[in-house]
């Protein structure tokens, strides 16, 4: 009996893998659409929040269940325009390309006490509550956008991971950028990444473009028509067609998606970015 693709439940026997590719080029200094904060700050806030939530979600009585590997890579160039592709996790995990969620939960770079606001149930007033907040990734913004180099490196990381987890739900790669590639045409590199596969399906490459202007966001388009510019079209061609479980999940979430919707967001603001990250997470079986 042949199995449906993208159906392997993620658990300790069949770990999942998320790989984040973060654009750390200079333009990430600019503010994100609908916000006064820098794109790079918003991005790391979203990634740290995602890591925190995933660690909490995997938490059981005996600690964090080892059911997920996560890599966070950053890419930029140095003053001599040489690409810098490096793991973005800081602290005890610095230098590691892929870590288990167990390690990530146990070793944040630091734990900051920050103030979060919760509505008082009776008065509706927002009350400040100090919260211990772990931080793994810090903002960086310098140099250019060596996207091809990043994808090439991602291919190596993923090929290695797949060789060790041939039956797992395929890795999900979330690439977040604000501009176009400056080291060549990224499409062939993206094709190579997507061509990697486990027994359960091909690697899913999701691309999210952050916008400085508060332009209309395009979420999960199914065709190139209507996309605003060449960069959007390139990202579209780089992005995976979302498989069945994702479409079903999206419709449960109230998102309308065409049958050939791709894992892509353009002109994303913070809300879109978080929606985008959740999309990748929630549709994977067993990760809910």
């Amino acid at each position, binding site marked *: 009996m042949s199995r449906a693709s993208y159906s392997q439940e993620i658990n*300790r026997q069949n770990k999942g893998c998320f790989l984040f590719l973060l654009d750390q080029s200079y333009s990430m200094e600019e503010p994100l659409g609908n916000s006064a904060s820098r794109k790079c700050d918003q991005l790391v806030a979203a990634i740290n929040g995602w890591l925190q939530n995933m660690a909490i979600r995997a938490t059981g*009585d005996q600690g964090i269940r080892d059911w997920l590997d996560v890599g966070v890579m950053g890419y930029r160039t140095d003053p001599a325009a040489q690409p810098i592709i490096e793991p973005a996790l800081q602290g005890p995990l610095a230098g590691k390309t892929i870590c288990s969620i167990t390690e990530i939960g146990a070793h944040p770079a630091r734990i900051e006490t920050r103030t979060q606001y919760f509505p008082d149930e009776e008065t509706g007033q927002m009350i400040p509550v100090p919260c211990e907040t*772990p931080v793994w990734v810090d903002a960086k913004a310098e140099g250019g956008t060596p996207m091809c180099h990043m994808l090439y490196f991602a291919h190596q990381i993923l090929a290695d991971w797949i060789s060790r987890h041939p039956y797992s739900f395929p890795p999900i790669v979330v690439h977040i950028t604000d501009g176009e590639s400056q080291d060549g045409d990224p499409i062939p590199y993206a094709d190579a990444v997507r061509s990697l596969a486990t027994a359960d399906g091909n690697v899913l490459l999701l691309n999210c473009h952050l916008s400085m202007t508060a332009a209309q966001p395009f979420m999960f388009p199914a065709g190139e028509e209507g996309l605003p510019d060449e960069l959007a079209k390139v990202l579209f061609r780089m992005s995976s067609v979302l498989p069945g479980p994702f479409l079903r999940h999206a419709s449960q979430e109230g998102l309308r998606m065409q049958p050939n919707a791709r894992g892509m967001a353009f002109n994303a603001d*913070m809300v879109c970015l*978080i929606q985008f990250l959740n999309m990748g997470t929630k549709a994977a079986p067993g990760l809910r």
Partner: protein
Amino acid sequence: MILSSFKPGFQTTMRFESRIFQLAKDPQAPTDFQDACQVDAAQGVATVADGVSSSLFAGVWASILTAAVVADPPDPADPNAFGRWLANRRAAWSQQIDASNLPWFQKVKLKQGAFSTLLWIRLNPSGSEYGMQCWAVGDCCLFHVRGERLLRSFPILNSAELDANPLALGSLDLNHDQYLRFATFDDGCSPGDTLVLCTDALAGWALKEYESGRTPAWDRLWSLSEDAWRAEIIEQRAAQQIRYDDTTLLLLRVCHPPTTSLASKTVPKPVPAVVIEPIVPTSPASSPKTVPKPVSAVVVEPIVPTSPASSPKAVPKPVPAVVVEPIVPPLPPPNPPAGLSDSDVRRWAESIASASEDLAEQVSDEMIKGMRKLKDSLFQKYRDNSAPKDPKKGE
């Protein structure tokens, strides 16, 4: 078919015989197991609970609940009494948790408490048979089987229902208890009947078997060793026939009531009035269309003021006989990530609001499903009542 240990007409103080099978989601980590079950054959009580493994110390919570069902049976029909019962269990859970030395990720999660589903049955001798009362919150499941026939599946009627987040009992009072609903029924069972109590993974497998026109071989399972059963489940997991989840199967074989006269009572009565037809869909895929209609209406009781002080008036009126679907997600929405400005926090709140909308949508879907079932069951009842009785009325 006949169990080696089950002798028709055999007199015993036991109301049923039982076998228990359990397997952790990760067989390599058997202690990371959040299901619990208890039986008391002399009292005729059996219970299963499924601690929600995404919550913390849920195994402890499930064990506390099942132990208490046997030692101090709750009465969900009396909301105040049940509120006190639950408050005592919650106190027991809190006493067992040492929160002083937890790492950050467990501290965060502990604030949400543990969650567990719960199902129990109670058999009381009634002549040559038993009255059987069953209560459930969440998606633990009971199958009442006579020979090859499935008489009842409770409270879940089809495998698709298991996709939703189940309603669950929380180990902390988070002001959600007003949403708790118990599904319940009061019926009978006969000596020789098989009662299958299980947690959701096994229930999903069994329901899919019935929906595909196959009949789970409960008798064969009865004769398996625990190791052989575990090996089978591991195989079924690999073949994606059963979910990777903690799995509990409790098989009960109903004995003769102690006062039963041997001569007249060895043959079980014919099928009782309430019968669930074997599930034989036209297509193997489980879709709402292929799912059998519930024949007996499931009575739903509202629960629960958690503090004894709550006045009975505060308890919502019982929802009419509708199968209850999960309404409260086991966990509140995640905290916003740190380091955000107020406006970002607001946007987070919006994204959480959108999650609530999703939940609302889920709830309304479930309500529609429930109403459909209600309608179907009322129609069925109407047919059952009217068809045979009409001629009599005419007489």
